[in-house]
């Protein structure tokens, strides 16, 4: 079996160790004998994103985010929207997550269009939400805790038809108000959590791999791995998040 992962704008959108997510996905495939190819795609590349099994996009600083904004909207946006609708596995962190939505409203009330794949809107805030996060997910196949670290001033609100990735147990989440964190839509996941996210949440990583294999091969079983160390780090992260708040 083999999977192809598209890493969008790896040079520009890698703010909080985001490449750790790609490392986690590729290692956990390799350890199971699943061949995985990573293809970086950046500014200007014309690309049919639905042909990929997994698409990853991280967060960027303001300047980088502005640089990719028009490329994302006018070059890759339509293709990514199509990929999301066709059940492609997509993971978007922080800035990448915001860009999947309808718009980002700056403090000056300027409206920056997203690709509009998901019915969510982000408002710039003047307060940064920073710290350890624990959420509880009820997404099918992904129930349980997810841990990470957040650092964002944008406040994201989901439209009525959308489910969050999870409920906030510790931290701020989407907006620090409604107790939701992230988004889950078809096989697409958006979240503010980095840390990096996937290495300490092996269940989440495996869920993404399983969804990708299911879409490509109709295969649902994957070989279990020894996760003692990852699980210990996960439990430790929950303990630390509990201590700090």
């Amino acid at each position, binding site marked *: 079996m083999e999977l192809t992962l598209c890493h969008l704008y790896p*040079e*520009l959108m*890698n*703010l*909080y*160790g*985001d*490449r*750790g997510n790609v*490392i*986690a996905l590729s*290692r956990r495939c390799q350890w199971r004998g699943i061949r995985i190819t990573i293809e970086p795609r950046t*500014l200007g590349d014309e690309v049919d994103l639905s042909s990929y099994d997994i698409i990853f996009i991280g967060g960027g*600083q*303001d*300047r980088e985010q502005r*640089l990719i904004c028009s490329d994302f909207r006018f070059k890759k946006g339509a293709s990514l929207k199509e990929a999301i609708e066709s059940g492609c596995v997509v993971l978007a962190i922080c800035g990448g997550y915001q860009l999947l939505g309808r718009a980002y409203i700056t403090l000056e009330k300027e409206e920056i269009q997203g690709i509009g794949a998901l019915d969510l809107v982000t408002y710039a805030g003047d307060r*940064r939400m*920073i*710290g*350890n996060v624990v959420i509880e997910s009820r997404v099918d196949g992904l129930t349980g805790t997810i841990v990470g*670290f957040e*650092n964002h001033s944008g406040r994201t609100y989901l439209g009525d038809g959308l489910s969050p990735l999870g409920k906030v147990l510790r931290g701020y989440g989407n907006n620090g108000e409604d107790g939701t964190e992230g988004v889950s839509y078809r096989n697409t996941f958006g979240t503010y959590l*980095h*840390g*990096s996210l996937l*290495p*300490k949440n092996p269940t989440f990583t495996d869920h993404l791999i399983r969804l990708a294999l299911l879409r490509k091969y109709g295969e649902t079983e994957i070989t279990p791995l*020894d996760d003692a*160390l*990852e699980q*210990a*780090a996960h439990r*430790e*992260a929950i303990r*630390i998040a509990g201590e700090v708040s």
Partner: protein
Amino acid sequence: MKRLLFFAALYISKILIRFLRLTGRGGSTLPGRVARRVYPGILRELAAQPRAVAIVTGTNGKTTTSTILARILRETGQSVVHNSSGANLLSGVTTSLVSFSNLRGEITADVAVLEVDEATVPIVLDEVPAKVVLVTNFFRDQLDRYGELEYSVSAVKRGLSKLGPDAKAVLNADDPIVASLGEGLSAETVYYGIDDPRLLHKNRSHASDVKHCGGCGAPLEYDGYFYAHLGWYRCERCASRRPWPHLAAENVELRGGEGTTFSVKGHGGRMTLPGLYNLYNAMAALGAAVTLGASIDAALGAIESFESAFGRMERLSVQGRKVFMALAKNPTGFNQVLSTLFRDGTNAPYLMIAINDRIADGKDVSWLWDVDFEVLADKQLEFVVVSGLRAYDMAVRLKYAGVSAGKISVEPGLPAAFTKAIASTPQGETLTVLPTYTAMLELRQYLVRKGYTKAW
């Protein structure tokens, strides 16, 4: 009345400094803040007294660079005052100058070398008539505390624009963001850098941040990288390029933990501080010293005799084993330490890594994923003990870097981890310890208590 307030501020502040020191609390903020409250002009008056003030700023290497600079100037016969690394904000700088002044309110030193936080540079330059502003580099560093890189860059840029034509900006030619600060300045610019194409790599390391032209925003083309985004670059769109350095290190031989040899304009240099990043620190200090009138030979002589700043790196001996401890506080620093230790031929098979997530370390440990620990995977690593408050994060990072699980042991408590690592290191061999900032402080406390080293 002005005189009276000046002396009131000076004495209150001096008494506070003395009091805080006696009660063991140190603290460099309060005395300066109080002094400024009593007499807002105090920093301006004190800073006008030395013959020259040199300001050192940038993300990495401020402390090492300013310490080397102070040393060069002293060895050329000048009297120098130099603030400590913890005092690089406005009130801290004020505290330092108060403590440098005598009871008559005079600073008799020839030169003041001031390490200043990037964001504080424009505010300090409003009051301090700097002869030289030295900028080392710009890296992403502990984002959760300082906000974004552009903020630091624009602050330093704003500061430099305040310099008059008799001041000089000493800039790193190999860092495109630092180099672009030189454009349009009324102050003269002096560039330093590395001119040795043998050290250029074709590939950029993952921790690199900056890839776009400061002039037009187009992606920069690199002939090669020295490390991270430092290298030989040019912009295809607006034809701006790496400035030719006035002072460059040539014929560079990196000898791992042994140090580095190099030459500047035909004068041979040697330093015991290892790694390219320390060569940049030395060249930055040399650039500023030469700008202030030192000769290249005198500067190289002082650099050669320089050991290390504040135990950022230290060697000790514990129960018949050698211990080499080097601070590893952010991706760039960590990558530099790793590439110094694991260069061809050199090796560090007995390893301890300690990661804390206290405020001084950065609360967010995501940066561990930006460090190229993959270099450890194919090396002859005997063991790695991971420790600190974020020991498990580090252990997972190493596992995903390809270090076999059998070689990783997790021991969050620092003394226990150190004891275990020492016991596992054969007699006569070297244990390498790489801690984050507060892990280093904690570990040093333990080592001092055990009598293996002295308190700073």
